[in-house]
């Protein structure tokens, strides 16, 4: 009876479902389970450094990335292991930000806690604020007084509509900035609908589909841990890796410039289809002194790296 088995396998072999872990996590994140102290700390940082951060309103003259260097104080505050209070009033949203890669700027995903409300609107506002990870930046910098560049997001039957603030999309936004919005909103909605930009209620150009993942996403990314998480003993790291990559190596880096690996291992990749695949790794922290480290993943085994560029993603973590 193997013929039917083969036929059924083949009939759906080209079905490559979109990654909906973001949407599922958003729907299942209850305040008690998803308490993420780092968010509160990061939010405080934004307020605390507002005076020193150059918030860019100049979208009309081309987006000015707010570089990590401008977010002084992020690191210390991000590591604060504060107890979370009042989390009932917040929710988790997926938010894509821009970071460097050997192939030029690419999108990376964070899960960030925002005030409870409509997930689409929460995610839209989140990407107009600085990311939690200082390695990233947003192409939709917070305006000073000019209001938000992206005002509101609404789920329709066949599109996700975004009402623009006082900007000219064609002049303001490079392709990757538009994709930052598309990826974020599709993830928050859990649906792959094209995004339609509206200006004063009138469509500004055609609806935009998500670009291919391999064109805009970094080939490897970390979903967990979040920036600044604190762990004791061990933790499970998770993320996604592009179809072309066969190895994800993780390491815990220490030292003044996070140059020396004090632990390393290989992640398990759930390969088997096209598209991006999930990876997981159990990271044992025993033997590490309490303190701050960098958790890093890269696509090539650095000891054998002879082929092609190595892609990485990093998170700062604390060990108790």
């Amino acid at each position, binding site marked *: 009876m193997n013929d039917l088995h083969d036929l059924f396998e083949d009939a759906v072999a080209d079905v490559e479902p979109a990654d909906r*872990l973001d949407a*599922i996590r958003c729907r*299942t994140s209850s305040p008690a389970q998803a308490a993420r102290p780092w968010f509160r700390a990061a939010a405080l940082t934004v307020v605390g450094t507002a005076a020193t951060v150059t918030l860019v309103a100049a979208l009309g003259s081309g987006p000015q990335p707010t570089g990590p260097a401008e977010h002084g104080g992020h690191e210390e505050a991000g590591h604060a292991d504060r107890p979370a209070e009042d989390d009932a009033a917040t929710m988790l949203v997926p938010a894509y930000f821009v970071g460097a890669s050997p192939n030029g700027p690419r999108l990376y995903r964070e899960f960030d806690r925002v005030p409870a409300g409509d997930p689409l609107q929460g995610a839209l506002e989140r990407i107009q604020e600085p990311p939690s990870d200082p390695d990233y930046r947003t192409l939709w910098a917070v305006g000073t007084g000019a209001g938000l560049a992206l005002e509101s997001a609404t789920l329709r039957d066949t599109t996700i509509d975004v009402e623009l603030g006082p900007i000219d999309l064609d002049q303001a936004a490079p392709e990757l900035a538009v994709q930052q919005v598309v990826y974020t909103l599709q993830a928050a909605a859990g649906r792959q609908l094209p995004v339609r930009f509206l200006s004063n209620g009138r469509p500004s150009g055609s609806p935009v589909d998500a670009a291919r993942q391999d064109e805009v996403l970094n080939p490897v990314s970390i979903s967990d841990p979040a920036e600044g998480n604190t762990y004791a003993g061990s933790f499970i790291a998770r993320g996604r890796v592009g179809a072309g990559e066969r190895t994800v190596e993780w390491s815990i880096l220490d030292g003044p410039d996070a140059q020396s690996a004090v632990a390393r291992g290989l992640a398990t990749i759930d390969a088997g289809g096209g598209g991006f695949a999930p990876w997981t790794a159990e990271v044992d922290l025993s033997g590490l002194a309490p303190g701050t480290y960098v958790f890093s993943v890269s696509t090539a085994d650095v000891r054998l790296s002879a082929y092609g560029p190595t892609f990485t993603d990093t998170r700062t973590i604390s060990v108790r």
Partner: protein
Amino acid sequence: MTTVTDRPPDSPASRQASRQPTWTADQALEQLYAAHWRSLVRLSVLLVRDQGVAEEVVQDAFVAVHGRWGRLRDPGRALAYLRQTVVNRSRSALRHRAVVERHAARRTPPPEEPGADQAALVSDRRAAVLDALRALPQRQREVLALRYYLDLSEAEISDTLGISRGAVKSHASRGAATLRTLLEEQL
């Protein structure tokens, strides 16, 4: 190629049988997602034909299993519950014609590798199998998908669908016979 294990993160495989898993609902959800998201969506596509509907059905099933983790507490039982939920929700999705029609109208993404004639042949064959499945009575379609796509035993199918083993056997044989007739050219 490696796969994500079903082993709880803090419990050595050797002791797994004698220990209660210590996964939280979030950990369980992520492990199940990593290991089964794709195959459950594919299962649902066999049942409802439309990938958009299938993704929504399975997404809802994952949310449901997360909410029920306190009672399931075991990856094997959680997977059984997931399968059952996917089949039940796929059935409801089909009942709501409006839903199906709306998604059918949605544009489907262009095929990734346009390999000319060869690709067209393959896609015809796939469409023929999905069409033939749609032509079967619902129970037969469910039994066949569980039997031949997920490779479940009669007992597992009987549990998943809440029908007797005898009924599983008869749906399987009748469904397979009809399918073979419909797909004579492909087999």
